[in-house]
């Protein structure tokens, strides 16, 4: 009897990928959202688990609003972003009464909720479950890893912006992954260069190449660079599917390449 309970809600999830950074504001939620959309366009069933309890950004980026979270025999039913149920999401954003409410919790409470998010959400059949994390290396990250140990974590994608203040923090995160035996699937350099829409001059506002250098330095795979694109920022504000709306942009190419590389390394 115990064995069948242990199989649990992650049993039919083929791959679990953490999206980590260490540094705040580099685009973890953005990259998680875009990767999820890219994988869906490639015909996969995807889930997003948003464990950023203090600043849940996923519901806003996918414009799922404030649906009610229902319970079923196996636990919580995730919220689906599309009628075909190809994208399942769970976030604390759905559980707050007031979306402006501040979640001012200490570690143990966060750990308890994340435990529930991992084991008590009826994900069903998924090709990939992406886990969007908050910055740092704290209770949330430890809770997610501990609870996912029973299942399997394929690895982590690390997101950074090119500048030194960011790569410094991401280096710590890489050490964290090595210490906790989480495979590093690759590094994504976000906000890498800005192309002026008027004159097409490229300005490296947040520097350039820092992510690639970090990958070389630590012996990790470099998945690719995503440019700083105001259209991407605006799409996320609106909850629009950027990849469908702007398939000709260089940002689209960058994200698609990263998603494809990620899929091949997962399926390998």
């Amino acid at each position: 009897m115990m064995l069948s309970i242990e199989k649990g809600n992650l049993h039919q999830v083929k791959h679990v990928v953490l999206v980590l950074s260490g540094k705040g504001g580099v685009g973890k939620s953005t990259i998680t959202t875009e990767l999820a959309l890219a994988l869906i366009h490639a015909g996969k069933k995807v889930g997003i688990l948003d464990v950023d309890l203090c600043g849940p950004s996923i519901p806003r980026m996918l414009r799922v609003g404030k649906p009610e979270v229902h319970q079923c025999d196996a636990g919580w039913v995730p919220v689906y972003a599309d009628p075909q149920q190809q994208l399942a999401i769970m976030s604390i954003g759905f559980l707050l009464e007031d979306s402006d409410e501040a979640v001012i919790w200490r570690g143990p409470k966060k750990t308890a909720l994340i435990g529930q998010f991992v084991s008590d959400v009826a994900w069903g059949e998924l090709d990939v479950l992406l886990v969007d994390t908050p910055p740092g290396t704290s209770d949330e990250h430890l809770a997610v890893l501990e609870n996912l140990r029973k299942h399997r974590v394929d690895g982590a994608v690390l997101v950074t912006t090119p500048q030194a203040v960011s790569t410094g923090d991401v280096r710590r995160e890489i050490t964290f992954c090595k210490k906790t035996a989480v495979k590093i699937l690759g590094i994504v350099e976000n906000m890498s260069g800005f192309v002026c829409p008027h004159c097409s001059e490229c300005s490296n506002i947040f520097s350039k190449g820092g992510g690639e250098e970090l990958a070389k330095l630590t012996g990790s795979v470099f998945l690719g660079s995503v440019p700083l694109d105001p259209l991407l920022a605006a799409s996320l504000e609106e909850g629009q599917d950027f990849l469908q709306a702007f398939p000709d942009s260089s940002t689209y190419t960058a994200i698609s390449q990263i998603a494809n590389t990620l899929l091949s390394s997962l399926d390998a």
Partner: protein
Amino acid sequence: MTMYFIFIQVCSKSLQERQRQHMARGLPKQKPIAGVKEVIVVASGKGGVGKSTTAVNLALGLMANDQSKSVGLLDADVYGPSVPKLMNLKGNPELTDKNLMRPLVNFGIPCMSMGFLVEEVAPIVWRGLMVMSAIEKLVRQVDWGNLDYLVIDMPPGTGDVQLSITQNIPIAGAVIVSTPQDIALLDARRGAEMFRKVNVPVLGLVQNMSVFQCPKCNHQTHIFGLDGAKELAQTLGVEMLGDIPLHLNIRETSDKGQPVVVSSPDSPEAEAYRRVAAAVVRRLAEHLR
């Protein structure tokens, strides 16, 4: 036998009394930091909006506007300490005779950060309780000397660190930093609400990365949206302390550890930070009244 029962009754009474005292303890009492006149926290809720950059340049701006003031900088971001990089400081702090840590100084600002106590690549994988104790040390076991202002650079989020600091130290005011995007403002609003809940006055909002001017054609792009923070300030009923543009110079000087207020004091970016510092001083004075 009677003596025995009387003894038990007396013991249980004092036990009850002790229990009552324990329950009445409630929240920790706020204790000011020795030698520090006013504590200003720079927070957000959202990561990566420029809290550390703003905290560093605010501290330098406060000194630039009034050379007689002494300003200190505490980096409370235990997981991702950015102050060492931004202030070009490295090394383990020395201990004084009284076993207090001596802050590292650059540009006239004494600084303390977790970054001075650990290796550059070592992650701080700590749960909340350990973080609380570390913050206590970074606040109390430092020989700050006499400071007019202590600027505290907060980490993102609304969790253990924020609670520990606001519960343990009396704070003169909070500066909330945000970029114009909705996704950042959502978190900034939560940050502001948290300060209201713990009775810390919100001095105002700083809108960071407001606009980018192409160095070649001078075309202005609002990469992260337009004026979102100004609207939030109005909704929350707080003041706009300033508007900082997205300028390569700020990032370049930050990466080099030469904050823009001291390395390019005549630039518009440095001027923007000095204006924020002046607004902060004015708001602090207003609040005292």
